[in-house]
């Protein structure tokens, strides 16, 4: 059978591969190459070695945005996962209205980042106006504003994943633990948590990458104001490309560094939490 299918390569694989090459492989390779070049458009690129990379680390806004993003990611990963897990625990107890609550909590996920950013800009600026401040007054407001926004958006999504994880725990396991005299705390610590470890792996992975790659919400909520202090990595890279002429090469070098950071974190995180999963 394999032989019969093999001849159909052009029909089955080629369309996807053409699109994949145009949409992914070519831009990726070109991007890696251009990070070693000086250019304003793709055609006038000249090779300059590692100069772009050196310039990246001389750019204080990049270093700042890196720390800002890292801190943001840590805070949101912790908050979102803890809250989402807590909500999931409570919503699997079979209380009345569970379906409605689930529907409500999940809804913000379907709204796009740009729209979300403007919704929260209105609300947060309204609240801060009481104290005579605005979101762009200091990067601290921008930071926490973005944290609240991200929690609001993502708790529902992670909650759904946790709920399915909790519901997949076999009932006998919990029964057995109860018969052995485990109290609610022990049940959570020694049965529920280890059993939902796969869900925790997925949710931390998603929240980590979402945090690092955050762009739309950042752009809409503060756009980096005041003076690039609330600018996250993705937005910093975007502004380097399209905000400063002559810095396209530096922007591309930043993008490569960004890719490496995201890649390393994704792999490390996956290894770390997967190692804690129990065999079922």
């Amino acid at each position, binding site marked *: *059978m394999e032989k019969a299918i093999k001849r159909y*390569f052009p029909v089955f694989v080629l369309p*996807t591969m053409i699109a994949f090459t*145009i949409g992914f492989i070519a831009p990726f390779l070109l991007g890696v190459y251009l990070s070693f070049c000086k250019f304003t458009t793709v055609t006038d690129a000249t090779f300059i070695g590692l100069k772009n990379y050196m310039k990246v680390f001389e750019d204080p806004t990049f270093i700042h945005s890196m720390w800002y993003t890292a801190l943001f990611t840590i805070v949101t990963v912790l908050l979102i996962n803890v809250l989402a897990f807590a909500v999931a625990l409570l919503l699997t107890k079979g209380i009345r209205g569970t379906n409605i609550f689930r529907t409500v909590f999940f809804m913000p996920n*379907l709204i796009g980042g740009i729209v979300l950013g403007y919704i929260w800009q209105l609300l947060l600026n309204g609240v801060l106006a009481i104290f005579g401040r605005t979101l762009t007054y200091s990067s601290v407001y921008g930071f926490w504003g973005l944290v609240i926004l991200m929690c609001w958006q993502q708790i529902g999504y992670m909650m759904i994943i946790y709920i399915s994880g909790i519901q997949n725990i076999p009932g006998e396991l919990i029964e057995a633990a109860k018969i052995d005299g485990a109290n609610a705390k022990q049940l959570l610590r020694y049965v529920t948590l280890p059993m939902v470890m796969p869900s925790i792996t997925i949710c931390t992975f998603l929240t980590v990458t979402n945090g690092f790659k955050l762009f739309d919400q950042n752009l809409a909520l503060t756009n980096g104001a005041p003076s690039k202090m609330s600018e996250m990595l993705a937005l910093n890279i975007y502004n380097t490309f399209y905000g400063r002429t002559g810095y396209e090469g530096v922007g591309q070098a930043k993008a490569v560094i960004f*890719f490496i950071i995201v890649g390393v974190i*994704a792999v490390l995180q996956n290894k770390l939490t997967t190692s804690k999963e129990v065999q079922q």
Partner: protein
Amino acid sequence: MLQNKQKNKTEMRHRDQSGKERKSKHGTLLTIIFTIISVLYMYPIVLVFINSFKKKAYISKYPFKIPTGNMYVELENYIRGIERTGLIEAFGWSMFITIGSVAAIIICCSMCAWYISRVHTKVTKAIYVMCLFAMIVPFQMEMYTLSKVANMLKLGNPWGIILIYLGFGAGLSIFMFTGFMKSIPLEIEEAAMIDGCTPIQTFFKVVLPITKPTCVTVTILQAMWIWNDYLLPSLVLDTKKWKTIPIAVQYLKGGYGSVDMGAMMGTLVLAIVPIIIFYLVCQKYIIEGVVAGAVKG
């Protein structure tokens, strides 16, 4: 049937009343707490809705006030929002791009996934590894070069962007499809082939119908992403001719010195309402799709 159900219900109520008095009290308290949280959770959206009927000068000043008297402006904000952004057209293009891209992704990626899960060569293995790789590369890495490549190949239109979304969505989609297709027993396909089906017939008549659950999952995940995507279309599309909804919303911010808050509120509401309706109708599939996607991803 119906009688049985009712009987069951009364039985359950009896059990509730007799055995778990304490627990049900606990449940009521939780229900009340969650009701309050849910209301708060919806508040940001409600706030935008309220402000969409307010005169634009009052929105930033008194965002929490209910529009009454001379603050109230009927549908003025909506009309201005639509006029300024071309929102109706943007809605059409968003629909076109999302539906076109998702359809292309489903058909092309499932075909590709079937091929690479049935034919074992170095090439197919390399494709699979590249798909895994594509899943972790952030868009910023490709952003500049992709917009240039798209420009060179004249893909800066809604038809071209479908091709780009197909290439960009291929990683995750192929990964998910191959995961499922590996579990389909080969005998079914072999039987079809022995009965005289060509591989194309086998795929469309036998394999694709079995793959339906994965199709739903991929559709949900990709549609959520493509519908809301701002950066890719804003860089690739010629935004003077074609806008998607996120671009239309962002367009209100750019270009002018001060933002017309009235038009913004109207536009935001119009951007949210179709999504909420869609969500309430297809909720079951969306939530299932997210769960299935997370398990496999």
